[in-house]
């Protein structure tokens, strides 16, 4: 069980500006902080293995003016589990049922079940960006097709592609927890995925072209990725792009067009857009 240490510095009054204290934590490699007004205090969290910094950090906080400094152990499970109560089996699109490992689901004839434990990775099928991708994906004839999933998160899109009959499926994510989560979810669903850690198409074979590219990331990353997708897709290939806030959609659409893509369909749900482009 991983244990983090919360280091909390209490102040005598709410400062006019908290940032000098946040900056002190940052100098110790702790860029994220939580602040409270009553009683005034700021907390940062030390990752397992870095506890050695606590004495020096405590001295620095007291020199800064902290009234007292408290430490508390936080088990990773405390928050890793807490959101799971909100993750229930759900239908996405016409035929897809996304089921967390710890729940049961009733299937109808023709349903495709995706069994997931996303761990710390993104992609439970609960977010509009993931739902949009899955809806667009289920309309594509994937049998025997080659697929690249850039920013695979929990692997939910690739697992779905595999269940829909895709052949070669390459997955990439910048974060190790996502790589691990994708591999676990592939095994859980009996789908064969090749998963690499890295950025964009960098870790994938340079000469590999794909029939379908999936990327549920963020607009800024999609804009950077667009020229690479254009060169990595076969003519007539499909790019499903998601993670786009409505206000960024015109820019993403323009960049896609500039890179030779034709928009086939876009889905808008709440603040989010998912789109299917043809190369």
């Amino acid at each position, binding site marked *: 069980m991983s244990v*983090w240490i*919360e280091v909390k510095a209490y102040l005598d009054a709410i400062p*006019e*500006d*908290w*940032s*000098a*204290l*946040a*900056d*002190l934590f*940052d*100098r110790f490699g702790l*860029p*994220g*902080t*939580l*602040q*409270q*007004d009553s009683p005034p205090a700021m*907390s*940062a*969290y030390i*990752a397992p293995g870095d506890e050695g910094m606590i004495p020096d950090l405590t001295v620095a906080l007291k*020199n*800064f003016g902290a009234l007292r400094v408290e430490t508390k152990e*936080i088990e*990773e499970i*405390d*928050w*890793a*589990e*807490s*959101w799971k109560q*909100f993750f229930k089996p759900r239908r996405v699109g016409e035929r897809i049922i996304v089921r967390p490992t710890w729940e049961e689901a009733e299937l109808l004839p023709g349903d495709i079940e995706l069994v997931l434990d*996303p761990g*710390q990775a*993104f992609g*439970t099928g*609960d*977010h509009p*960006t993931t739902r949009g991708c899955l809806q667009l994906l289920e309309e594509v004839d994937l049998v025997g097709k080659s697929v690249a999933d850039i920013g695979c998160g929990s692997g939910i899109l690739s697992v779905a592609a595999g269940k829909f009959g895709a052949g070669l499926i390459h997955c990439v994510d910048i*974060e190790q927890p996502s790589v691990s989560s994708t591999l676990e979810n592939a095994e859980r669903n009996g789908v064969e995925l090749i998963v690499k850690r890295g950025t964009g198409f960098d870790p994938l074979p340079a000469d590999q072209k794909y029939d379908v590219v999936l990327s549920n990331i*963020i*607009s*800024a*990353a999609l804009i950077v990725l667009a020229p690479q997708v254009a060169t990595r897709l076969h003519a007539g290939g499909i790019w499903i792009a998601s*993670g*786009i*806030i409505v206000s*960024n959609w015109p820019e993403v659409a323009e960049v896609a067009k500039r890179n030779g893509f034709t928009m086939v369909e876009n889905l808008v749900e709440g*603040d989010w857009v998912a789109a299917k482009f043809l190369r």
Partner: protein
Amino acid sequence: MAKKIASIIKLNINAGKGTPAPPVGPALGQAGINMMEFLKKFNEMTAPQIGYKLPVEITVFEDKSYSFVVKQPLMSDLIKAAMGIERGSSNPSKQSAGRLTKDKALEVAKKKLPDLNTDDLEQAIRIVAGTARSMGIDTDF
């Protein structure tokens, strides 16, 4: 009728790079809000400001819905950016990390003014100077 507020969470996190690791995980997990949804939206909104730490104030309502506001980058980050330095002093009482001019302090104050409890620019400059000195940065005004 306005929804009842259950709690307000104040975080300072890296723009565009929020993860479920602390402080986000424990804070949002305890509040019962959809952490991954928040992170996705936060990272999307703040990607253009990568390199800054941003204060974000999350209002959690009793029905577990939430809203959040992202503020201007931390004043300390704005000061460092204005001065072109990477960090404050590791020993502020003994070692200087540089000198902040009034022009640079004014630049920071103008950017940060919407988040401060004042609309007086001179007062805002004094707050900037106070933060700078706490970071081991000298001021000449």
